[in-house]
């Protein structure tokens, strides 16, 4: 059998063909049953559990030689784990990589949905730590499986309502549960709830991989995804008081950067590619020019 290899001794994209077939079958089922967590025989990967083994396996099963891969963590291409995963696929699959969202055909992400609107010819692969949205309400798999089978999601509503009773608002800010296509309640992975609206009616296919927990799930393109809420407490995303200090973007998710030990703060785009593109396009934030940008100088 001619199994093409880039890194010597390993198949294209590391996984053997039998494993890829098993993962691909799980992906087809996940697409056919939006939001349902398909069990799969997750393999031991050369990176630790909890560091993206699920996303890496999904990406490895999807990837072809013509793909261009982008990997982000916390919205950034340059966080250490994103660099490490990107390197892994450069080595084992020899695919082109990019930091530009618009140039990528496959984007693997941890904790963010890119700000740029995704297209139909793109695939977004999420790394998922705990795929079960009900896990912290009910630790037993045997119980949560039953609850999903019966579409019995009262527990989740009770939890959210307790928040309102105690805090006056829903106190879940990330990994905010959603209902997919009117049936399954799904954990969108720990993205800030700011990103939830981008998951619904997205032109791109979204795949979710949880390696340690051995689950794959999906949201097909243009699928209705509703963040759980109540009539008197509708779902709301976070808002920021000021625009990005570097590119002046509004309506984006911002990281808070501590500038000194006297309370100095600035807010900058969490999506680094989006921020760079805006600055290239001539947008100017109020701190731009006042601070050296390590990466661009380097």
């Amino acid at each position, binding site marked *: 059998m001619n199994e093409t290899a880039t890194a010597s001794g390993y198949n294209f994209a590391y996984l053997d063909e039998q494993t890829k*077939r098993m993962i691909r079958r799980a992906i087809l089922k996940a697409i056919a049953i939006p939001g349902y967590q398909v069990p799969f025989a997750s393999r031991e990967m050369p990176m630790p559990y909890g560091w993206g083994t699920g996303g890496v396996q999904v990406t490895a099963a999807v990837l072809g030689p013509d793909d261009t891969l982008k990997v982000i963590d916390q919205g950034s291409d340059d966080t250490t784990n994103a660099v490490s995963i990107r390197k892994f696929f450069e080595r084992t699959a020899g695919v082109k990589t990019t930091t530009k969202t618009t140039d990528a055909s496959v984007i693997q992400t941890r904790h963010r949905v890119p700000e740029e609107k995704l297209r139909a010819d793109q695939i977004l692969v999420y790394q998922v730590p705990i795929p079960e949205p009900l896990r912290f309400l009910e630790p037993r798999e045997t119980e949560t499986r039953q609850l999903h089978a019966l579409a019995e999601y009262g527990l989740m509503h009770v939890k959210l309502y307790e928040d309102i009773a105690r805090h006056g608002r829903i106190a879940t800010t990330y990994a905010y549960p959603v209902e997919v296509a009117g049936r399954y309640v799904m954990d969108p992975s720990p993205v800030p709830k700011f990103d939830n609206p981008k998951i619904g009616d997205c032109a791109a296919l979204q795949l979710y991989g949880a390696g340690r927990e051995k689950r794959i799930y999906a949201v097909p393109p243009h699928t209705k995804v509703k963040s759980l809420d109540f009539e008197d407490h509708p779902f709301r995303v976070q808002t920021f008081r000021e625009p990005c200090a570097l590119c002046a973007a509004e309506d984006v998710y911002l990281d808070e950067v501590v500038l000194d030990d006297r309370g100095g703060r600035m807010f900058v785009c969490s999506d680094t590619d989006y921020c760079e593109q805006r600055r290239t396009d001539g947008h100017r934030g109020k701190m731009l020019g006042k601070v050296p940008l390590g990466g661009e100088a380097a």
Partner: protein
Amino acid sequence: MTVHAFTDPVFDAQKVFRAAMNVLSRPGTLVPLEADVRPPAPLSLEIAALALAFADHETPIWLDAALTSVSYVGEYLKFHTGAPITPHPVEAAFALVSEPALCPSLTSFTAGTADYPDRSTTIFVQTDTLRSSRSFTLRGPGISGTAALRADPLPPAFPREWAANRALFPRGVDMLFAADGWIAGLPRSTELSEA
């Protein structure tokens, strides 16, 4: 003319998978299937490529009467995929249908369980055309507004059979239709109505 499986097993399988993933993600959309295979007749190139890309020793295959009548077909699939051939549609992970008009009722296949709706049959159907003038309207996940399915011929009593399958959701079977080097998908989540 000798029969053969994928000439490039790694990349052919990947391309076929991406095509199948795309059509199931976007019900009704036609996607070309590029793979270099030559199966024994009456197994079509498209259905063979799908079986080679997805089946192995973990996935029993069911063959319809026309495919069963030629022993080469079963042998070809067993040799190249390692998949067991089952005479019982209810045991099949994949069902290969070469004559849609004679396809058994969708309820003869397995729809999975309420706990594990993924443990269901995926049916690959060879049709004459995916561009028939007779069209069904599709709605559901993967579709912005509406889409159309123009596969012809379809299994008997199809709109009714499919409505019954849709009513089982999240249980149910999923289907892929093929003709002339193209495929289209119909996942269980899709609602189908006469146009």
